[in-house]
């Protein structure tokens, strides 16, 4: 039911872990529904995401979308990260089963939540 890419990102997830003293952290989802994603960002002086890590509680698709989303925003500006859509994450994974599309939405929301957290901590930042 999963594409090879999903299985690849599920079995060898990229960017797993956490960043101590991260510049921005976003957590979305809830345990009751079976998915929680947390994304940690390190942002350099130019507003570029220099480091990104994630931790996810969830199914295969939740882990794979977290992995892919972090790959897609690494080295990008905050503005570019905010423009990431769930459709783009799903497409980069060669598609997701319809019932799993909400996982890609969660990944998009986790990225947005992490950027918003950064903005809150750095009100001087301009995107």
């Amino acid at each position, binding site marked *: 039911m*999963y594409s090879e890419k999903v*299985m690849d990102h*599920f*079995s060898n*997830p990229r960017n*797993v*872990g*956490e960043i101590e003293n991260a510049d921005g952290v976003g*957590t979305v989802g809830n*345990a*009751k*529904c*079976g*998915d*929680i*994603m*947390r994304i940690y960002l390190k942002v350099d002086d130019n507003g570029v995401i220099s480091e990104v890590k*994630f*931790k*996810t*509680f*969830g*199914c*295969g*698709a*939740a*882990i794979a979308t977290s992995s892919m989303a972090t790959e897609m925003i690494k080295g990008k500006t905050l503005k570019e990260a905010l423009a990431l859509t769930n459709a783009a994450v799903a497409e980069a994974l060669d598609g997701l089963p319809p*019932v*799993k599309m909400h996982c890609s939405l969660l990944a998009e929301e986790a990225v947005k939540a992490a950027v918003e957290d950064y903005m809150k901590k750095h009100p001087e930042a301009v995107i």
Partner: protein
Amino acid sequence: MDRIYMDNAATTAVHPAVLEKMLPYFTACYGNASSIHSTGRDARKALEEARRQVAAALNCKPQEVYFTSGGTEADNWALKGTAFSHRAKGNHIITSAIEHHAILHTCEWLEKQGFEITYLPVDEYGMVNPADVEAAIKDSTILISIMAANNEIGTIQPIAEIGQIARAHKVLFHTDAVQAIGAIPIDVQAIGCDMLSLSAHKFHGPKGVGVLFVRQGVRLDNLLHGGAQERARRATTENVAGIVGLGAAIEMATANMQEKNARISALRDQLIDALTQIPYVRLNGHRTQRLPGNVNVSVRFVEGEALLLRLDLAGVAGSSGSACTSGSLDPSHVLLAIGLPHEIAHGSLRLSLSDTSTQEEVDYVLSTLPGIIDDLRSMSPLYNDFMEAQK
């Protein structure tokens, strides 16, 4: 290492000896069992031999055995057939919250037809209390349907006690014994049930064939209308090869049951003991009143589908009651009924053994699974937060 199959509660491999008995009925003996010629009579003979084998296994009369297309049809027939033929007497049916969907969804449909259903709760081990059954009986009660053993958590139900209560109150009693055949002794006289469902593919028989035992004298509307097969109670040209397979499989499954199950439950206990040693892993279901092949644990802080996929990559087939595997937003109704919060129910893992399971397989699973759990926990924010809070 070959792939390890620990999902025998979902389905089992057809035993080679069963397959061998079935094969002639696809080609050489392909007759329609209703035909008068000798080709038909050969098929009829095989059909009646299988009926005798089932009757011997259940301790009933051969004419009380009705072949169906599987457990689901048998459950549907028992419930709908009883409901509609006893409508004049009453409209109330008692069942439990942990039945298979073949029962629960049929009950939900019956509710729409005007029947009243009581879904009895279970205790934390998944056990129905016979006193609750008795208390739920009222004048309008026409049927009690309680499973013999649960498919997810393996809890064996006190069906003989429930059978006694049903008799005392003159209410019909059906039991879904799909998971129980070959796993625990099933004697319809000892249980005192009026109807019982079973399915061949759960005990090394083929898929697509099952039985509804209907005690002589029990009135039941037909589910399938058509020809006069199965003494005019269940139309459709008989699936002779499948039925031959069911007969052979039930005979094998109920032979040397004690010896066979002693070995399987020893393997089960090794898995349960070792897995529950892992911190924040709990056993679901009853420790002793449990099917010999059933292991069901909840692994906190991880999600069941991820666990299954990782196990599959390691060559092990299991199953889970997480929402992601149930095809809905909620985790298994059985795990919720025993009182598990959603987040713990999402992390459930069922490993189900059979005659074909080996010590080597158990050793391999125990050498692999703890590492997978560690790995998934290491990427779980829930585990992260929990451990932080413990400090």
